[in-house]
């Protein structure tokens, strides 16, 4: 009996645990479907495959091979550990062996992934003496290696950021590579959604434009583990028609999926035990039983908290039992730290890891047996991706989703059929997003003068004229030329809309060691003076946040609390683009200015999570210009009437609660992260003079979410209504409209008010 069988047996006998399980789903093992090695396969490649034990292919690998060989672009969608890499390595290596001058570019969303990929490829390339030269080209590649990578690398492994800021602006140095570019592999294509995806489409446009200049027209091979609309997303990103390979032929081991809702602490108020503590105790149970476990947390702070709690609990344990090492892993760590943790997981010196979604992607961390999601990751596809991190080795594995008290989490554990039956979310991109498009258009003109008849984007010429007015481009001899001393790619970061980072420096005992970095807007919210910053389980106190010099000095400390900023936001409407009456309200889509001010912070005690004090914060306010949907409740529209139909004292609480509700429900419908979207309610809005609810994009310039919300508003509101009406609580709980807040001092039942308001507004359909 394996450790995991044993621990699952124990858990099943534990009635306290089982009372919290809303669904225990066994996903049976699946047999494989195979195909013979292609008849035209190069003998050397055949030898390499045989040497590593591959006598036949999974059906999807063979299918992908056929499409690519016939010159078609493909997208391969099969789960983690289904041999996806071979789906693209095989056709690529085949071509490189018969045509050594051909070149391939592999793009991975993160640096860590590309290093893993190179290791795997090098191994097979060496073993079979294929003689194919593979080189990694990213920010960590030393200058001395770069020249040879460009000149002789047949497969270059890189990431979109490097392609955008390093390769494309310097393409004359890459003439040999780009002129022979035959394949572009885009792995983990589901990561290119929303903002990142819109950037990616533009980067690919630029790549194809430059490749064409050198006479190349590469075939695209895209891959993903879980995405609802793989073909559509791939076609949006490469902007060509793409063949879909989705029939997974690989076998997989059985998996237990457990939906776990923490027990009530206060049933009346709907308060349940916190996800941090619950995830910790479940992880401990697995780890102590010898089960290699990964915990996914939803924020960097939670990652550090859970890791610290697990380590704290193990301290007593490992004095009399084996040593269990648990690491935290998240963005903001230095690359060397991340590499060490990844290696530890692979070689078995690290048994447990607590991670943000940074480890959700295919970084090879060896075989893990259990995955615990501390909170619903925000999308169905992320859930499957995270659950898939356990069980790479075809053995029995387990995944536990621990629900937080957020409405979305509660919806998922209370509606397992919804969670299990729903296809993964669809990914969408908006390459015509003004902010993103303009940034990449500047880069494209820098890379190569642009002729007006070029169709970089549907309305590029208007944009080019706009740039010319501003003096950054100049029209001369039939083309727009870059005419500015800046290097435009430098000013554009693909990962979020602002590119400037704050460096975190440990100055304990007069040292000066950079321990991490974070983007500027979130620095104001997590790195204000006197904030507690947690890094790899060490506590630091912020001694000085120097925004001007993008530097934050911290010193090691040891206190029993962590800090959370209290953020105030206000909204100013800049321009109304479209107004229409729909779904019983006036809907206005337009530009707004959001001003964010951190004025105070809370100190929260570890373990008990109680509030133990406040502090003042003085950082300049952050301004963001973005896109919003305002739902205006005019007196005579159904929504306005519905609002007037409820007790006047309940109107403010009801609208506020609908803000909470829709913001938390809509990610499922808008295919975004909850954090991509924000909501704000006004009973008497200064701009509209009426009660109104804003839903807006959390990115400068907007990313199309507000518009999408407007399109789907009926569905979202009806889903919100059914969630709140079917909720078991009596007066509102964190699962639906939020718990009753004693400071509000209202007499009526806010939940009933919301149900009444929403029912009257959107009806009972």
């Amino acid at each position: 009996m394996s450790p995991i069988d044993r621990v699952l047996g124990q858990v099943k006998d534990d009635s306290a645990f089982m009372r919290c399980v809303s669904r225990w789903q066994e996903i049976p093992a699946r047999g494989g479907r195979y195909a013979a090695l292609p008849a035209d396969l190069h003998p050397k490649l055949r030898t390499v495959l045989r040497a590593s034990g591959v006598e036949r292919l999974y059906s999807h690998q063979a299918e992908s091979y056929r499409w690519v060989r016939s010159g078609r672009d493909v997208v391969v969608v099969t789960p983690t550990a289904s041999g996806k890499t071979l789906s693209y390595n095989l056709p690529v290596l085949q071509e490189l062996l018969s045509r050594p001058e051909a070149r391939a570019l592999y793009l991975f969303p993160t640096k860590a992934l590309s290093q893993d990929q190179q290791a795997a490829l090098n191994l097979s390339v060496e073993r079979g003496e294929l003689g194919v030269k593979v080189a990694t080209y990213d920010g960590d590649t030393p200058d001395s290696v770069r020249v040879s990578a460009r000149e002789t690398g047949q497969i270059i492994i890189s990431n979109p950021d490097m392609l955008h800021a390093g390769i494309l602006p310097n393409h004359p140095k890459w003439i040999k590579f780009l002129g022979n570019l035959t394949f572009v592999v885009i792995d983990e294509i589901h990561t290119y959604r929303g903002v990142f995806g819109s950037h990616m489409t533009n980067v690919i446009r630029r790549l194809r434009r430059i490749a064409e200049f050198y006479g190349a027209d590469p075939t695209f091979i895209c891959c993903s583990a879980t995405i609802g609309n793989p073909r559509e997303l791939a076609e949006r990103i490469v902007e060509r028609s793409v063949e879909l390979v989705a029939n997974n032929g690989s076998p997989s081991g059985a998996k237990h999926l457990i939906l776990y809702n923490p027990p009530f602490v206060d049933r009346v108020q709907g308060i349940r035990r916190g996800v941090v503590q619950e995830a910790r105790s479940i992880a401990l149970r697995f780890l102590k039983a010898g089960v290699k476990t990964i915990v996914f947390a939803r924020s960097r702070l939670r990652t550090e908290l859970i890791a610290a709690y697990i380590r704290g609990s193990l301290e007593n344990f490992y004095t009399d039992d084996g040593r269990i090492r648990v690491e935290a892993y998240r963005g903001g760590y230095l690359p060397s730290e991340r590499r060490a943790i990844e290696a530890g997981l692979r070689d078995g010196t690290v048994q447990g890891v607590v991670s943000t979604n940074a480890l959700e992607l295919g970084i090879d961390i060896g075989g893990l047996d259990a995955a615990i999601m501390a909170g619903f990751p925000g999308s169905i596809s992320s859930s499957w991706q995270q659950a898939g991190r356990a069980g790479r080795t075809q053995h029995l594995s387990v995944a536990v989703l621990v629900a937080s008290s957020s409405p979305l989490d509660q919806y998922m554990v209370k509606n397992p059929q919804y969670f299990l039956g729903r296809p993964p979310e669809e990914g969408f991109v908006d390459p015509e997003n003004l902010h993103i498009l303009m940034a990449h258009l500047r880069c494209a003109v820098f890379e190569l003068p642009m002729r007006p008849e070029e169709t970089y984007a549907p309305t590029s010429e208007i944009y080019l004229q706009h740039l010319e007015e501003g003096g950054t481009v100049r029209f001369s001899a039939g083309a727009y030329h870059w005419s500015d001393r800046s290097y435009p790619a430098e000013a554009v970061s693909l990962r979020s809309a602002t590119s400037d980072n704050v460096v975190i420096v440990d100055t304990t005992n007069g040292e000066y060691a950079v321990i991490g970095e974070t983007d500027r807007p979130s620095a104001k919210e997590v790195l204000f003076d006197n904030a507690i910053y947690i890094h790899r389980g060490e506590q630091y106190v912020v001694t000085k946040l120097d925004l001007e010099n993008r530097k934050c000095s911290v010193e090691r400390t040891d206190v029993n609390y962590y800090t959370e900023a209290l953020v105030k936001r206000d909204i100013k409407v800049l321009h109304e683009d479209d107004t229409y009456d729909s779904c019983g309200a006036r809907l206005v889509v337009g530009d707004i200015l959001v001003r964010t001010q951190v004025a105070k912070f809370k100190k929260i005690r570890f373990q008990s999570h109680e509030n133990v004090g406040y502090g003042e914060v003085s950082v300049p306010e952050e301004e963001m210009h973005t896109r919003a949907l305002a739902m205006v409740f005019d007196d005579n529209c159904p929504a306005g009437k519905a609002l007037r139909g409820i007790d006047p004292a309940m109107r403010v609480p009801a609208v506020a609660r609908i803000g909470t509700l829709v913001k938390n429900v809509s990610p499922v419908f808008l295919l975004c992260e909850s954090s991509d979207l924000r909501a704000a309610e006004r009973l008497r809005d200064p701009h509209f003079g009426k009660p109104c609810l804003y839903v807006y994009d959390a990115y400068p310039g907007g990313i199309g979410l507000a518009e999408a919300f407007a399109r789907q508003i009926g569905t979202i509101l009806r889903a919100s209504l059914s969630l709140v009406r079917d909720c078991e609580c009596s007066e509102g709980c964190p699962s639906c409209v939020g718990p009753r807040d004693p400071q509000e001092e209202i007499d009526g039942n806010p939940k009933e008010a919301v149900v009444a308001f929403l029912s009257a507004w959107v009806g009972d359909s």
Partner: protein
Amino acid sequence: MNGDLYHRLKLLKKMRQTVPSRAPSPPRKPAMPLGVPGFTPLADGVWSRVLRMPALQLREVLTDASILFPAQFSPELVRFFDLETTGLSGGAGTKVFLAGVARLEGDTLALEQLLLTEYGAEPAYLTALAERFPQDALYISYNGKAFDAHQLKTRFVLNGRTHVLQHHFDLLYPARRLWRSVLPGCSLSELERYVLETERDQDLPSWEVPERYFEFLRDGDPAVLQPVIAHHYHDILSLTKLLMTVHAILSDPRDWIQREAVPFDVVQAAAWLLHRGRGRAEHKRAEEMLRQVVFHTGRDPVVRTRAGLLLGAQYKYFGRWTDAEGVWRLVFEQFGELKAGVELAKLLEHRRRDPNEALQIVLALQRHQRPPTAARDLAHRELRLRRKLNASDTA
């Protein structure tokens, strides 16, 4: 639809302006200049100016410059060059708009500057450059290897052509060796001030160069380019002077040491001669320089130490043990230098077969705090020497 778009573009522009990166530009007024004073047109948008000056001395230097670059390049094949570009970060969008090349014509130096006055004329501009930048010549620049040469190559590639400057001698490298340790910096303007002792009346900060060019493109007034053209012209002249100075120092360094006219790093100059010199004469000259420094009691002990270590290594390489011992002993005894002491101990132990004196040296070295690896090495050495001494005692 377009009204809306226009509105949003305006907003976007306003947002950009809140970021204090660039000053708002005046409305553009594209105009081809009627003429650039002193320049003659070669083609539409391509202008040239040639200035000549006597260069007898330069010719002499270039005739025998084998200490700097291979002798295969006759003086006629040497080109001094410098470019002005629309940006300093490089990349495909940075354009060359002013290229200068100077070469010998008999006993005169002909300095030609080529100006591009419209981006669209780049193909013709490159044709003119290709004629004036033969690929087999030797190019002398200041920091041109890392920047200018790449930029030039890039412009040709972008216009579907290939043009590579194959032979390049970048004065930045010898200049850094000679002056990095004695000057506040090694930019061309700093070398002008301290080494060439030429001061420019008013010089242009380098960021202003592209800005002036953009202004010229917008308004068509060649007057704004005049300071750029003058700056560029002086840069190339300074190149020729710098070459002569470097050559003089490396050819007859004794003279420079005695005159002390311009300070330079004697030890680095000697190192250059030792590593790059092709004949016995250059090695002898380097040794001579180093001896002068090591045994010159008036000099800075730090410099004397560095010179001593280099000289000792040189003697060791040629097996001149007595000379080596003398230098190491001096540097060790006078300045307590660790490396000299260790070398001396090794020499005494293995060459002179004198473990006793070697041990005394090691013990003396151990009296001071040493870095961990050095300390371990010394302890190890001490142990071995003691074993050797014990063995010979008992024998």
